[in-house]
């Protein structure tokens, strides 16, 4: 095997595979540990959007969600040496994000801070759904969809933590029951029970849309 430009065997081949998106999460972690910063960039590109979306649905606050998603990657970066590959990397990073989000929720409750998002709430006290601006007017149908999305998001955000996390992971992020159970460090039965209970609570609030 020929030496690449950095004098390390196999790095060039690894970069090619990375460019093709073939490297597994564990391989990217190993590469990052070895000092390959582009491997960590690849990790971020894979998880930044799912994590941001997950945290947004959890917190119902886009700015906070982005902040915590970034914080998640920073913590992962500095804790890579302690990461064990016995767990799926996605489980690992979602668990960190979940813990950060739960801490944030509890901090909010403790401090009882006034939420600045309240300034942007409408008269019906409904939260403003984050919508990337696209510069075009919304059609009536889109307005209805927007109203429904806001209602659903508000209902999810109102769920107790222990139901909110599994419901979002399962129904928003599309994780399997096993993955949800691993992220929450719960048994499979308990996880399914919480998802069912969370859905039942949502059903009561979203009766009009079912």
């Amino acid at each position: 095997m020929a030496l690449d430009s950095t004098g390390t065997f196999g790095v060039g081949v690894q970069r090619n595979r990375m460019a093709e998106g073939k490297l597994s999460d564990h391989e990217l972690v190993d590469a990052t540990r070895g000092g390959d910063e582009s491997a960590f960039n690849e990790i971020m590109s894979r998880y930044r959007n799912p994590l941001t979306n997950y945290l947004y649905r959890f917190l119902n606050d886009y700015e906070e969600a982005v902040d915590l998603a970034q914080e998640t990657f920073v913590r992962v970066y500095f804790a890579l040496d302690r990461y064990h590959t016995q767990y799926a990397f996605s489980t690992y990073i979602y668990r960190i994000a979940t813990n950060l989000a739960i801490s944030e929720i509890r901090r909010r409750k403790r401090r009882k801070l006034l939420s600045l998002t309240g300034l942007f709430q409408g008269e019906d006290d409904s939260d403003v759904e984050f919508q990337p601006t696209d510069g075009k007017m919304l059609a009536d149908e889109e307005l209805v969809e927007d109203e429904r999305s806001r209602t659903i998001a508000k209902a999810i955000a109102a769920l107790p933590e222990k139901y909110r996390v599994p419901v979002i992971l399962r129904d928003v992020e599309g994780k399997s029951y096993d993955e949800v159970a691993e992220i929450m460090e719960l048994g499979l039965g308990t996880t399914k029970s919480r998802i069912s209970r969370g859905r039942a609570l949502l059903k009561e609030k979203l009766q009009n849309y079912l």
Partner: protein
Amino acid sequence: MVNEHNNLPETEHIEVGRLIGTLGRVQAPKDFDFQVRARIAIGKPQEKRASWFPATVRFAAPLGLLLAVGGYVGYNSVYSTDVASVPVVAYAPAEPGSPVNNPVAQDQPVVNTEVIADQTLAEAKPETTPDRILKTGQKTPAVTEPKNEKPGGGSYDTAATDSKKINAPDIDDLAPAPKRVLISAKDFLSSIGVSASSTGTGGRIQSVGGSAAAVGIMVGDVIESISVQTRTIRVTRDGKSLAFSIR
């Protein structure tokens, strides 16, 4: 099919899940990676801690209260004006035939005239004692004034301002003023050569000399009561109550 966990039909669960799944997905901002890199460049994140202020208040407020109460109690115990817990101030009129000057009277039983140190002013009932013994306790703010039958009445304020100087009660205004002897417990003890300190239940004798030593009073005795009138002092020694007449 029925869900095993809450008896909700599985189809409804699927509907709820599908409804949630229709939510749009938000994207990370374009500078997301840059921001993460910037944070990494700053260094390892510190655990977010609650502000020091609430924790300080949480511990400082009770501590301050404790110190204030402790300081108040400590100050009062250290700088107490008590000389001894013998709250007796006696008035002994120096009249002919009075027990003070009558050796025969001194031989009378002490019990009849002694005043218990811990008694309150009300309990002492000075009006009923034959020799007009008045007393005031350390914690008694005032000494009784004689009932003033004149219109307009009097005030207890004068007594409250100086509890150790007691006006002789029931003195006939027309009669010549008798020679009055004002003796406090402290003065009496000093006069017989006794110094005592407060023990809470009485005065523990610290030193003895003079006539007190002559009659057998010893250091360590705890004063129960003093009768200035009969010049008698009752003490507790080794659990026994002893009475001494000072000559």
